[in-house]
């Protein structure tokens, strides 16, 4: 039935893992890179069953309730006070979010 992920199908080689991790801004340990190559390969093998279907004439269904253009009146409403907005920041001076230097000197 379903591959249990024990055999690496190479559907997801290490280089792909590293490239995708970089796109996702996600640092992985070498062990995670190896593990994900195997596990994500098995998952991609499994989802390949969708190729059995010809869906070229089926419209993609993005949402269960297919709404368009939900609009509201353009009026000002109160928003989060500044103090509350920065209260959970890992680094803040009480007014701004502090980040490492963005531009190289």
């Amino acid at each position, binding site marked *: *039935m*379903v591959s249990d992920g024990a055999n690496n199908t190479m559907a997801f080689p290490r280089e792909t893992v590293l490239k995708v991790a*970089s796109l996702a801004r996600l*640092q992985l340990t070498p062990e995670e890179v190896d593990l994900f190559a195997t596990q994500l390969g098995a998952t991609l093998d499994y989802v390949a*069953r969708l190729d059995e279907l010809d869906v070229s004439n089926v419209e993609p*269904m993005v949402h269960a309730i297919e709404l368009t253009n939900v609009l509201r009146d353009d009026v000002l409403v109160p928003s989060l006070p500044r103090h509350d907005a920065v209260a959970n920041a890992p680094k803040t001076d009480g007014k701004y979010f502090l980040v490492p230097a963005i531009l190289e000197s």
Partner: protein
Amino acid sequence: MSLCDLSAGTLWRKLQSGEVTAVAATTDYLNAITQFDGQVAAFLHVDRDTALAQATNLDAKRSRGEPVGLMAGLPVAIKDVLCIKGEPTTCGSKMLQNFRPPYDAHVIEKLRAADAVLLGHTNMDEFAMGSSSENSAYQVTHNPWDLSRTPGGSSSGSAAAVAARMAPVSLGSDTGGSIRQPAGLCGIVGMKPTYGRVSRYGLIAYASSLDQVGPFSTDVTAAAALLEAIAGHDPRDSTSVNQPVPSYTSTLDQPLQGLKIGVAKEFFAEGLDAEIEQAVRTAIDVYRGLGADVREVSLPHSKYSIATYYLIAPSEASSNLSRYDGVHYGHRTESATSLNEMYAASRGEAFGPEVKRRIMLGTYALSSGYYDQYYVKALRVRRLIREDFDKAFADVDIIAGPVTPTAAFKIGEKSDNPLGMYLADVYTISANLAGIPGISVPCGFTPAGLPIGLQLLAAPFQEERLLRAARMYERETDWVTRKPALA
């Protein structure tokens, strides 16, 4: 006698009539948490003083002769995915270990307005990704019926708390079965409403086109009351639907005449345990005995639902979870010097393995060159899955079947096998893809004494019909009176 021995619906009615005070109910449930949660590990955070203060205020309001809200002081446990202002809200993740929301989720506002008592936050798989609680960054929750087994997930603590009678009702969220699957494995009632029925404002996002908040309860009556309290339009969630909320509790006890029940042959195929099948078929016979017309229906694309889900949900998750950047809230690494290093290291340090796997899978499925092949293809198959349900519901009112292919599995049994864990959601996932409501109702026990759930599904916004159908079955059986030896 402890008030925890009453079914949730009975307690709720006694609170409404004033026969029982909110302080008495809250005190008994807080005592039950003290007594049992050391073994079950359902709660991440219990705020005793705040809960008792809410109960005291409600009782005072009642003694002044003021009208009391729908929940009338009923204690409610809350999955840690829902923001409660000023209270720790971690989503089961190290990423949000120190996060205290600056606002209440819409459903929390609704519960406060309805005079519920909030007991605290319950354990869950990290960011609602998982089926066993083993992906929680904090603790593993145990099934009250057998502590060596999982309560299911991702709303693990909310289900286990109700099953162990540490809360009469609770809130969970269901993206692929995360309410119905743990309800089934814990022998309680759990319901996923129609997508859009309940606002997602303040629900920490996993997969936004699938996520929906819903109730757990020891019985159908209190589940109906809790849904009635939380449902309704909210302009802050643009997918929340502006349709009136029926009074589910006032029609609940009216049986449905001429009920047509569909049995999907695909839900009784390979992989379903014989003991589960037998209990579910016996439950369907109960409906036959009540005069229901039972007929076969077909959901031919249901075999593609897991594959479809595991492309769409990770894709949405990879986008949603990009907000955890170490800047605005959440964990930030100590080690990085550049901005890019800071992003990657903060995320790498604070996300657990399953969250990383899904971010990776989703990023891949959305990436240039693969977007059409994976993500868009899954969206096309999603429509076929929805159309199967539309056709079936042209013919029947309710589709009945199992919630899970097996009873509760052992903790650790599937933890090294992500794909094997995904398959535990085989019967619940298609309702999320289609956006339809579903409910899990207790329908028996395995010879080993583990609970079995009956899943009922209905067409969009047919919650009233679904609850009445569930109640018809509940009245004919005594499963809801069973509770684990521990409680």
